[in-house]
Structures are given as structure tokens and as C-alpha cells.
């Protein structure tokens, strides 16, 4: 057994791997299950000693562009986000594949199959294929550490960004990890190539064609790294492809070794040679992958008669949605074991709820009362703790779609004639993606009311600094909100009647109103 071992969450193993790979900066916006990567770096003594950049960015797009700027200057940068954050950063991500990089650039996308803390379960491997960049998918915390280090080497070797994909269960599971000797940071080495970085169509066409021409070689190089491997097995009636974390569930089913040939996949693009070798050796293939049937669909294609039987999520061997579990993988392999006692009938769900004393409770109380006389009103909400206002006893909101969509949906609904049209957004979500939507509304004098629940922190993800802190009024006024319709309230029960009155006034104003309900998150107060 190794000597110097540390217990790391998958997220922390990635963070330590990046520090030891000599990064000069981390750029991120908090989002479960990726938040702990940045938090680890923020607490790491060596990051402070080296002056590694480690402050939160306004959103995932600004984070990725900032990381790309650091790469342009020759240094290594890490950028982390949850899967839906990559949608926000997609413009930067897709085009960073066309510019390529100078210093190593690794983008971590933490996917959340089964939607433990998310609104969808999109699979980030599609983004890797979309942009034509290599994707790394570690199976364990040790691989998370080792592959992060290799991802930076590979990024500089190929001069391309590398996407590193993990899923919730690895991000939030702790295991012993052995670290290796740290590498020093890159010196400043600013790029001088305008053809690489100025994506005029003439340059971009050249860069893209060159990336496409290199793709077969990139695939070969990715597959030559030690992470994809073939493990022979005597029973060739079935070959198994196990991607990322799926490899663990497979091994869990066969403590004495899997009898079938297994192809462990932790690297993309998929190598046709590897897949072909498995195909030639086996009668059928079972694909185990966490998330979408990404590999499986590439194998089956659209031919009505595939070359061989492919089993997985598409043929019902595994559920079409939701994360892999030890149980559904065991069932797919006919290795189910007896379960413990059934859950008794008196069991009731215990969903998450707003904390006792949470300022959002008082805000929803005055909002509901203010809206009582307006049966046609609609409240468009957003991503954060306050989404829990959809549940009893509040049942105060009618939508939650994506970061910032409260303001823009309220505007669209107001355009369509909904009145009063109300948007409810948190302070951090507002600076993430609310500003531009508010600008649309101000420019058109849209009759809508925006309630900003300012708890002076990013609450849902555990209390990260909000870039809105101390800036909210100035931001709203700067965008052009009428100062007489920018109101600031203290959401406390003793101000309830007064707050109801103020919100009613603003609901009746036929233009853009912004009401800021400001009181610090109770969890953060506790932490002190």
C-alpha cells in the first residue's frame, strides 16, 4: 500500500491534481457538484503561497474566457462548472477549440445524472465531441488526480483545451489518494500568433480545417494514454464497455474478476480500433456509461440491422434515464443480490425546505399577500434556494428554468399581456445572468416588477461570495432603472405590512420596478 495518502473528494482530487500540475489560476462559478474544486483551491496553503488566482467569476462564460486569457499568456488555467454551466460557457468553449491554447487549459464539467441538484441531466461528453476536443473521464479519485495532471500535459502537447468530465458520485465521494511531486508553474509566455487568436473567418476556416485534419491523430494519441484499457476475459458471448465510474460498478459485480472481455473507457474521442477489436472478439456488446447513451448511440448508429447486438440504455437493459447504480448494473449483468427489508408504509418523504428564519420566507410572505388582489399575476423565478418557494407552504412561484430566466421570461410574458408579471431572482443569480435581461426590459419600459432576494451570498451551493455584494443598486441604476422605482426592503415579519404596501405600489407602476429584499442568509450568519 502507498505511503502518503490523503482523503479527497473527487472534486478535491481534481483540485490538488491541478495545483500539482502547476496551474496559475482557477476560474469558476459555484454549482453542485463542481463547487468543491474551487473551494479546495481557495483553502490550499500552496495556492495562497503561489498567488494562484482563485476568486469566483460572475458566471461560467466569464470564467472560461478569463481562463483562456491566462492560457493565451502561456500559463496553465483550470475552469470548473456544473454541466448546465457549460451551456452558459458554450460560446467560449466551442471557439476555444478553434483558437486552441497556449498554456494548458482544462475545463471541468461536473454532470449530475439523476438530477440530485439540477434541472436536467445533460451529458457533457457531447460538448467534447461537438467541439472536437479530447475528453477525460476518470473512474476513481486517484484517476481524477492523475488524469488532471495528464490533462494539462495533453492540452499543451495538442495545443487544445481538454474537457474533464465527472459525475456527482465521483465528485462527492471521498477516497484515499496518493499525490505525486508538484510541477512548477509556467513562466509568462504571451502568444504572438494573430492567426491563432483572431477568429476572422479566414483564420477560423484554416484553424477548423486543421483541427479536423488532426482529429484521427488526436484520437490515436488520446487512446495511447494509459486510461483506456482492454482486460481480456474467457467468456466472449458478451464484451463490456465500461466508461468512467461504470467500471467500478462492473467490478463490484465480479469480486473475483469479470469473466467477459472488458474495455475500460476513460478517454475520448473513441478509438475505432479499440472498439473494433472488442467487436471482433465478442458476440454482443453491453455498454455501461453514466449519463446519456453517448457511446451506445455511436455504436448502434441508425442502421436498422446493426452489425451485432448492442445492449445498454437504448434496448432497455439499463434504464434510459438516471444515474448508474450498483443495482441497475448488477441487474443488467444478471448479478442482482437480495435486498434488505422493505421500507415500511409509514415512511414519508422529507424534501429540502427553506431554513427556519430564512429571509426568503418573509419575502414570499409579503409577495404572496401583495399579489392576493391580482389573480392573473404570474411569478417567474430562478435558480437558487428560493426555488424551494414553489413548495408548500409558499407555493409562490410559477417557473424555474435556467440562470437568469426569471427576468427574461417575465419580460416575454409581460410582452404577451400577463399582468402583473413578476420576476424573483437571487443576488448572485442576478449578477450571473440577470443584468442583460433587465437591460432588455429597461430599454422597452416593460411593465414588470423584479424582486431581487439579496441574501448577500451564493446560498444554495453553501455560501460563496456573491459579486452582487455592495453593488446591486448601482448595477440597477447603471442599467437605467428609474431611481423612484428602485426600492429596498428589509424582509422581516415586523415590516410585513409596510413591505406589502411597497410591492403593491410597484406592481401598479406600468414600467420596470426593482424591489431589493435585503437580509443576510441565516446559514452564513451561523458560520459567522
Amino acid at each position, binding site marked *: 500500500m502507498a505511503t502518503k495518502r490523503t482523503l479527497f473528494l473527487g472534486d478535491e482530487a481534481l483540485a490538488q491534481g491541478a495545483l500539482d500540475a502547476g496551474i496559475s489560476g482557477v476560474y469558476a462559478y459555484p454549482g453542485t457538484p463542481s463547487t468543491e474544486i474551487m473551494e479546495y483551491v481557495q483553502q490550499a496553503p500552496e495556492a495562497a503561497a503561489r498567488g494562484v488566482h482563485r476568486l469566483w467569476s460572475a458566471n461560467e462564460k466569464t470564467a472560461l474566457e478569463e481562463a483562456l486569457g491566462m492560457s493565451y499568456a502561456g500559463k496553465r488555467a483550470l475552469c470548473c462548472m456544473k454541466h448546465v454551466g457549460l451551456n452558459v460557457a458554450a460560446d467560449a468553449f466551442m471557439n476555444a477549440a478553434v483558437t486552441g491554447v497556449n498554456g494548458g487549459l482544462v475545463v471541468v464539467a461536473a454532470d449530475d445524472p439523476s438530477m440530485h441538484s439540477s434541472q436536467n441531466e445533460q451529458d457533457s461528453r457531447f460538448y467534447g465531441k461537438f467541439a472536437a476536443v479530447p475528453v477525460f473521464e476518470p473512474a476513481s479519485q486517484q484517476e481524477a488526480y492523475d488524469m488532471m495532471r495528464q490533462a494539462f500535459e495533453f492540452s499543451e502537447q495538442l495545443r487544445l483545451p481538454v474537457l474533464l468530465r465527472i459525475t456527482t458520485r465521483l465528485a*462527492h465521494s471521498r477516497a*484515499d489518494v496518493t499525490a505525486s511531486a508538484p510541477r512548477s508553474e509556467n513562466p509568462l509566455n504571451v502568444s504572438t500568433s494573430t492567426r491563432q487568436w483572431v477568429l476572422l473567418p479566414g483564420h477560423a476556416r484554416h484553424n477548423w480545417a486543421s483541427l479536423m485534419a488532426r482529429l484521427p491523430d488526436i484520437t490515436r494519441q488520446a487512446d495511447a494514454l494509459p486510461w483506456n484499457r482492454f482486460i481480456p476475459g474467457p467468456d466472449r458471448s458478451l464484451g463490456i464497455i465500461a466508461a468512467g465510474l461504470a467500471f467500478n460498478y462492473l467490478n463490484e459485480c465480479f469480486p473475483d474478476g469479470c469473466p467477459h472481455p472488458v474495455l475500460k473507457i476513460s478517454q475520448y474521442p473513441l478509438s475505432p480500433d479499440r472498439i473494433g477489436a472488442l467487436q471482433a472478439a465478442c458476440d454482443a456488446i453491453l455498454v455501461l456509461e453514466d449519463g446519456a447513451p453517448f457511446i451506445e448511440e455511436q455504436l448502434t448508429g441508425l442502421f436498422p440491422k446493426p452489425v451485432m447486438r448492442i445492449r445498454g440504455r437504448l434496448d432497455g437493459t439499463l434504464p434510459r434515464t438516471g444515474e448508474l447504480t450498483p443495482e441497475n448494473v448488477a441487474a443488467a449483468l444478471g448479478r442482482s443480490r437480495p*435486498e434488505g427489508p422493505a421500507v*415500511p408504509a*409509514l415512511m*414519508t418523504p422529507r424534501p429540502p425546505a427553506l431554513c427556519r428564519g430564512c429571509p426568503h420566507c418573509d419575502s414570499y410572505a409579503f409577495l404572496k399577500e401583495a399579489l392576493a388582489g391580482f389573480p392573473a399575476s404570474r411569478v417567474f423565478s430562478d435558480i437558487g434556494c428560493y426555488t424551494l418557494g414553489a413548495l408548500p407552504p409558499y407555493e409562490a412561484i410559477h417557473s424555474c428554468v435556467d440562470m437568469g430566466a426569471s427576468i427574461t421570461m417575465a419580460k416575454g410574458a409581460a410582452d404577451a399581456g400577463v399582468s402583473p408579471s413578476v420576476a424573483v431572482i437571487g443576488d448572485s443569480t442576478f449578477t450571473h445572468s440577470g443584468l442583460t435581461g433587465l437591460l432588455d426590459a429597461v430599454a422597452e419600459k416593460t411593465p414588470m416588477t423584479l424582486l431581487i432576494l439579496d441574501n448577500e451570498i451564493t446560498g444554495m451551493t*453553501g455560501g460563496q461570495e456573491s459579486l452582487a455584494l455592495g453593488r446591486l443598486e448601482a448595477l440597477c441604476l447603471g442599467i437605467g432603472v428609474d431611481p423612484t422605482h428602485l426600492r429596498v426592503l428589509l424582509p422581516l415579519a415586523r415590516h410585513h405590512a409596510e413591505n406589502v404596501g411597497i410591492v403593491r405600489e410597484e406592481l401598479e407602476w406600468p414600467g420596470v420596478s426593482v424591489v431589493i429584499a435585503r437580509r443576510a442568509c441565516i446559514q452564513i450568519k451561523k458560520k459567522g
Partner: protein
Amino acid sequence: MNYDMIIAGVGGQGILSIATLLGRAALDLNLHLKQSEVHGMAQRGGAVLAHLRLSDKPIHSDLVPRGGAAMILAMEPLEALRYLPWLEPAGGWLVSNAEPVRNIEPYPELEALFAEIRRQAHPFLFNAEKMARDLGAPRAVNMAMLGAASSFIPLPAESLEAAITAQFTRKGEAVVASNLAVFRAGRQATEALSQPRP
């Protein structure tokens, strides 16, 4: 050696602090471990659980398979029953705190919950809040739980005590001593039960 367990509770009860102490002890003993946690939205007062796996060999899955847990350690009686399918059908222990967290409406009848817990093959139900309070350390509820669980977990008590000491040293000797006292009381409550393990 393999030991798989589930730690169950309500967001905010600090189940991760128990898992962390077990993890620290396991690491000192040069064991492998995997510990899967719940972060994010569920931590806001929802049902939360941690999977903890200890072994002298490398561990594959981060999650304990259903039917594989040698113990469910529950910080709360309703949560004790939520993950029963994970318990080893024959020999698994259900160790539960009796003190309810009533943040849902309606909360089931407490006596009915106790009856369900006692109906299991190997239950141990006790009031950890009271145990900690009686020893003058009302904040050390998790130590009572860890102590009660420790009789069944194949880690030496000294290793767990060393982990507790290391964890609280920063807060001074008195805090270390009171946490150790509650841990020992919890352990004493189950020591006799752990002997004739079926």
C-alpha cells in the same frame, strides 16, 4: 476485512462529521475507504445519507449496494427506516437515535416508528441527545452515535478515540475530554450486544 455502512439523517445533523472521524481512523490504520456524501439542495433540511465503505483491499463502487450494509446508523428515527433495503438481510444492525427531527407535516407517530425499528433483526434504539446532555456535552450527540456504532465496526476503539482527539484538539482539552466521554458512553451502551454477533 470489508465493512459497508449507511449513515442517515436530516440535512444539518452533521452526518458528515461522523463519516469524517471514521475515515480518519481508517486512514491511520492504512485501510482503504470510500465515502459518498450528499451535497447541494438536499442539505437544506432534507433527508441525507452517506455511504461508507472500509476494506483492506481496494474498493470499487463508491455506493454501498442494496442488501450490502452491515449497519445503518441513523441520527433520527424516521430516517432509520428510509434506507432499510440497503441493510444486509440477515445480519445487519440498525442503530438509531430516538430523538425526532419534526420538520415535516405530518410527522409519523413516534411510537409506530419505534415499533418498526424494534421489529428489525438487530436493532439498537437510544436517545443520543439525552446521553450527551446527561454528560454535560449537549453538542456531542454525534459522539454518542459514533460510540454506539463503534462496538459493531471492526476498527479498534483507540483508533477512533485518536481520531476524535485529533479532530477537537484545536478546541482545547476540555472539549476533547467531553467528546471522548460521550463516545465512551455510547460505546458502552452497545458493547454487550456486539459480542454474540450472528
